[in-house]
């Protein structure tokens, strides 16, 4: 995928008002400077993000000594500095909106408010096996160090709350923070915005509010989730599991269902009469045309969410319900020759 497309998808999905910015660290003389006006690196990044400007600059065009060290133009004279690109072989740095670049970036930087960066973090964590995003920041060496040198040197995404220089001299607003990505991470996030399993929770119609933990607990028993109910094959029968709601919207019980088919509605009605004395409570049954709907309510005694956390107890309750409804269905079929 081309960078223009990646940039567009990323911006669209995360509703970013500005472009992701491509940073390239150039160690040779293969490219020429395009920038002669001295400026801070963080200012160039913001101009690039919001106004689409591009810069290729050398150390002479930098007005910030922190960036000079962090971007690897100069080795520190006194002790070690962290974070920085080392060894300090940088000749030029290119800053350009991602959609305008054709060369692979070394780092991609985005500017956003905490809400938007939060959404990025959610996807990033999912791509990294739900591991939390780790960030190193100290309010110094922000765009140049925390968001460029760290992703470049450590191949890790990093977050920065910016530094005084960036906020005072480079136009960053109070609600803006910055994130720097190694290019592979950025590409994965951008491409994943089309993967349904990652983004499905963020779009489309939600048909119920059954907690994810409860869904997986029910699935573990052998049910699959449909739009309206769960169903699975147990023995020779297809058993449906439904999650009825109380008046206040809580789910504190489950119902198991096995609809039994008869030749026609008259046969179903007379079978319904026959089974009156046979079925044991709390089993429910009702004729629906040529079917008798057999249902078994299972009282959870608490909400589904909590009940499903008690894994073994929950599983035992549902499994014993399945045994009961299968036994009773078998009995009905035997007595009525369904």
């Amino acid at each position, binding site marked *: 995928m081309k960078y223009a497309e990646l940039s567009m998808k990323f911006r669209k999905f995360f509703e970013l008002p500005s472009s992701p910015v491509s940073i390239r660290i150039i160690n040779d003389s293969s490219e020429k400077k395009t920038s002669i006006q001295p400026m801070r690196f963080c200012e160039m990044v913001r101009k690039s993000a919001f106004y689409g400007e591009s810069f290729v600059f050398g150390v002479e065009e930098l007005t910030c000594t922190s960036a000079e060290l962090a971007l690897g133009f100069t080795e520190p004279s006194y002790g070690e500095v962290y974070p920085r690109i080392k060894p300090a072989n940088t000749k030029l740095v290119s800053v350009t909106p991602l959609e305008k670049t054709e060369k692979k970036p070394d780092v991609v930087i985005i500017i956003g408010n905490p809400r938007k960066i939060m959404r990025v973090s959610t996807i990033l964590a999912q791509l990294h096996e739900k591991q939390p995003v780790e960030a190193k920041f100290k309010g110094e060496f922000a765009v140049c160090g925390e968001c460029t040198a760290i992703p470049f040197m450590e191949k890790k995404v990093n977050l920065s709350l910016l530094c005084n220089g960036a906020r005072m001299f480079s136009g960053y607003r109070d609600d803006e923070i910055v994130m720097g990505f190694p290019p592979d991470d950025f590409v994965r996030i951008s491409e994943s915005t089309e993967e349904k399993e990652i983004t499905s929770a963020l779009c489309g*119609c939600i048909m119920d509010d059954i907690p994810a933990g409860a869904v997986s607990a029910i699935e573990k028993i052998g049910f*699959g989730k*449909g*739009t*309206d*109910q769960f*169903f*699975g*094959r147990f023995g020779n029968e*297809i058993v*449906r599991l*439904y999650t*009825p*709601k109380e*008046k206040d919207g809580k789910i504190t019980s489950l*119902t198991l*269902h096995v*609809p039994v*088919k008869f030749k026609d*509605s008259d046969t179903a009605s007379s079978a319904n009469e026959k089974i009156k004395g046979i079925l044991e409570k709390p089993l429910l049954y009702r004729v*629906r*045309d*040529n*079917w008798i*709907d057999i249902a078994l309510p299972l009282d959870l005694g608490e909400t589904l969410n909590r009940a499903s956390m008690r894994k073994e107890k929950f599983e035992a309750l549902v499994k014993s319900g399945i045994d009961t409804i299968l036994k009773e269905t078998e009995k009905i079929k035997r007595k009525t020759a369904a």
Partner: protein
Amino acid sequence: MDLNKYKNLTRGISDTYVNVHPIQRGGVLTAEARKALLEFGDGYSVCDYCFESRVDLVDKPPVHDFTADVAEFLNMDDVRFTAGCRHAKWAVMHMICEPGDTVVVDALAHYTSYLAAEANRLNIVEVPHNGYPRFEIDAQGYARKFEEVEQKTGKLPSIAVLTHVDYRYGNIADAEEVGKICKEYGVPFLLNTAYSSGIMPVDGKKLHVDFLCGSGHKSWAASAPIGILATTYEWSSKVFNKSTCRGDWSGRGFSKKEVALFGCSPVFGAPVATLMASFPAVVDRVGRWDEEVKKARYFVNELEKIEGFHQMGVKPKQHTLMNFESLPLHEIAEKDKRRGYFLYHELKKRKIVGLHPGMSKNFKINTYGLKHEQIEYVANAFKDIAREKGIKIEE
């Protein structure tokens, strides 16, 4: 920008296909409507002789007469055409409710009922259904919710919305009972007939309806987007309220334009022309609704011969829109490299379209307007697919 993709647009299916799409059957154009589509396909084509500044008042073609005829057909007093049923719902709520009011809706309502309320900043309270496998809306639930809302907010809901036939199971709700309850409580009643008026008899007065909205493209054999908003004289001037604004500098005013319809409802060319052209056939076809139900029941009966196929919702079917469970198909899909899409492709191979691609655990289908032979063909196609995959079929 590749502009070539916009050239030679085709749908990929021809007249020889059987379309069972749940939302498309009632919107298939009549031959008359296809002629009208060509005649009035240009943008503002019905406005050649517009002297009254509103599309519903145009006499040539006879849109003005048509509004009166549609009102008579639905047994309502006044009608306007809207940019879809969703626009009609929005318009009613916009004109008769105040932000912060409560709307009571059935829990099977189309999402546009919820969004119409949201756009008008109304609080939504749902009347529950009775769950698996019937999913029926309890009419008495409206009375309970009215009481609850009054107790909680100090006033009754400003409108009640009922989906006459729901889009998920094709159940027909007891609109007459809900209408009576609304009259008792004095709550205005909006009936969404997107899946009923135009294909089955609907009598607004008999159902005690204050507002009736319908969908031209879903159930009146018209090109999208077009909806129908019908009301009674009691509400007509309020819901079709005319503009009173004036430009503060120019002094301009638009006193004939109806506010909730954006002045002149945006249905100018193909939508209203095809709706009109199909109307004689629509009037005729609702009289044959019983035949449609009979065919739907035949179809259910045939499909339920396949092991694991089970029609959800009220039985026997009272409507042509239906929802089947089909776990055995899902079990096949899990082993097939096409996954859930296998059913869609298998049917398409047999020239049947309209099933939602990717669905195999359960699917919705609509048999409205299909000939008996076509219904038999579709049922046999399902049986063929099942047989090929080793699923048992009753003989």
